[in-house]
């Protein structure tokens, strides 16, 4: 019981993931600034933002549906933190690992997107409704490539469990190289999931003020922003666990250290991608995802099928 409470609240629960999320946000913003030849925020900036937001008053608009409006940030944060429990943190072991936890993680990662849609739609403000509609439309575009690219290595490893995949790829290290194309595609699709440039269409500041988050303020906005940070951690951890499976057999301490390094590496790649592109329009994004990314993901799946057929008759 005490261990369960420790797991939920401290490690790898709220405290650890909160602090790690803030660290990841700091690294992302600092790297973004340095790539643009600026100084960037100090290390305590995400913490300061969080404390400031928590100290402010939350205003629920009169026309909004108050129950849905106030519930959505909580649901969003819950979904992402629960997804974190299935990621292998130290070596090949996760807090909860079972056959199928890969699918569960992907499912739980979709919950924040649904909450952006519901929260924005029930805010009843024009800008929020447009942002909510865009959020769901974007979901149709990036989901298929992301899922295919993440499921292809799982298929090669003959298991649906992240921890088992880590064990498999550890014993067959060269198979990881066949998934590099999938890594690139999944990285771009992850930009869509995390709503970062070039796919930050639901939150386009110059077009619809803040999209879903236009009417949110105070503690509700603090929870939403925490959810965005945690989403980035979970997304980067998922990619690191699936596509960068080396060195997981060295034991828990070194495994944990390597996990941190891999996540920060993926976050650095995401920051660089965020810097060099402009924002796309929603129709351009959908046509790009369906014309180029989905076929490429299918090809990756096909390649993994062929290799599986050759290797294990």
């Amino acid at each position, binding site marked *: 019981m005490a261990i369960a409470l420790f797991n939920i609240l401290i490690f790898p629960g709220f405290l650890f993931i909160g602090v790690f999320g803030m660290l990841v946000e700091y690294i992302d913003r600092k790297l973004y600034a340095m*790539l*643009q*030849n*600026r100084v960037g925020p100090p290390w305590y900036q995400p913490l300061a933002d969080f404390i400031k937001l928590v100290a402010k008053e939350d205003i629920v608009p009169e026309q909004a549906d108050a129950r849905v409006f106030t519930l959505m940030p909580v649901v969003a944060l819950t979904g992402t933190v629960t997804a974190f429990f299935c990621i292998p943190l130290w070596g090949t072991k996760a807090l909860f690992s079972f056959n199928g936890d890969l699918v569960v993680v992907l499912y739980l990662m979709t919950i924040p997107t649904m909450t952006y849609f519901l929260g924005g739609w029930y805010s*009843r403000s*024009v*800008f929020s409704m*447009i942002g909510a509609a865009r959020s769901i439309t974007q979901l149709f575009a990036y989901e298929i490539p992301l899922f295919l690219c993440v499921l292809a290595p799982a298929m090669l490893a003959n298991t649906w469990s992240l921890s088992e995949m880590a064990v498999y790829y550890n014993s067959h290290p060269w198979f990881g190289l066949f998934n590099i194309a999938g890594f690139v595609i999944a990285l771009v699709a992850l930009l869509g999931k995390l709503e970062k*440039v*070039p796919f*930050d*269409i639901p939150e*386009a*500041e*110059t*077009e*619809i*003020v803040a999209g879903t988050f236009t009417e949110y303020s105070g503690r509700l906005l603090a929870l939403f922003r925490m959810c965005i940070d945690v989403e980035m951690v979970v997304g980067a951890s998922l990619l690191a666990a699936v596509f960068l499976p080396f060195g997981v057999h060295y034991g828990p301490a070194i495994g944990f250290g390597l996990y941190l390094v891999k996540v920060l590496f993926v976050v650095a790649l995401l920051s660089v991608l965020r*810097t*060099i*592109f*402009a*924002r*796309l*329009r*929603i*129709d*351009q994004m959908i046509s790009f995802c369906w014309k180029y990314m989905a076929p490429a993901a299918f090809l990756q799946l096909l390649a993994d099928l062929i290799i599986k057929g050759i290797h294990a008759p």
Partner: protein
Amino acid sequence: MPESSNFRIPIGPQHPALKEPECFSIVLKGEKITSMNVRLGYNHRGIEKACEERTYIQDMYLIERVCGICSHSHATCFVQAVEEIAGLEVSKRAQYIRTLIAELERIHSHLLWLGVAGHEIGFDTLLMYTWRDREGVMDVLAMLTGNRVNYGMNTIGGVRRDVTSEQIPQILSAIDILEERTKYYIQIATEEVTLRERLSGVGVLLHDDAVHLGAVGPTARASAVDRDIRRDDPYAAYGELSFNVITDNHNDVYGRTLVRVGELMESYKMVRQILKNLPEGPIAVKAPRKIPAGEALSRYEAPRGEDVHYVKANGTDKPERVKIRAPTLANVQVVAHMLKDRYLADMPIVIAAIDPCFSCTDRAISVREQGNSTAGTMSWPTLHSYSIDWYRKQGIDFAELNKKFKIRGALK
């Protein structure tokens, strides 16, 4: 919850896409814009009326503050009109210095536009890089004129400060650095795929529509309308400089980008020519305080287009009427035409592509009387008493406020 999928969203007066307040109210169906309504007037400050109560020297500084980015354009246009009425012959050196500051202002304004366009399409990196390079021009202007914007370089009869020979190498080295950077930005604008996708085919304005709706400046030149006041009606030192007028026939925002970076390269050439051929002589002639009666219309090619000033003098030291027609007023009517049947996501970049400067634009007001469906014009004394009565009905009495704040020329 809207019954159909048509709803009206307000872009403005306060909106992150706009740097200054204007109201564009857009009717949307899904993501497509079906109609648009433009309302101006949020930045009206009564500058034209305020000019009538100040002397010409004071007016120069007031008119300079019509806009921050094109301040020298307005100041020079006004001063040229006044000098024409007074029959003053400005020395060649003063003309060249005015042209130098004008071209440096064009450089800083176009670099600012590149950054703003990048920000509107979500490309913050371009914003940061162009504004970092723009600091080079701002430092040169601060060294020459004493301030980064609102240069205060003109005086009636010439310019106030001279360009010394130590400053010339600094200006030239800053221009050299900027030319390298601008070539890089041309490469980015033509080769970066997300930029091309967002800028091409957006905000299409055909040649005949541009002429018919009266577009000016780079907005019109990107639709192959070959008009530039610097070449067609030369003022200051432009008659003696050789430069090309950049036009483009893409008819869209991408064309406007190409026109503006092309103008940047031409400005660098012009600055070098000016500094090489700077003539000797005095920098100002003595100007009378009382300008004789007369009227003059003066035109100027501001970075945004054609700027027109009309000044009427009546022999005293205060002008009788000053009228300013800023280029954005001519271009803002084109926005509604360009956004028909386009996506909402194109709205910020199309508005940014005309390089809006709403502070310049807001001049005239039309007041409709209650219960009277036709619009009319009021005389100044009628408007004066109408406004005092209106405020009194709201509970604000100006007599009390005047005593409290001791305002000069107070409304009674």
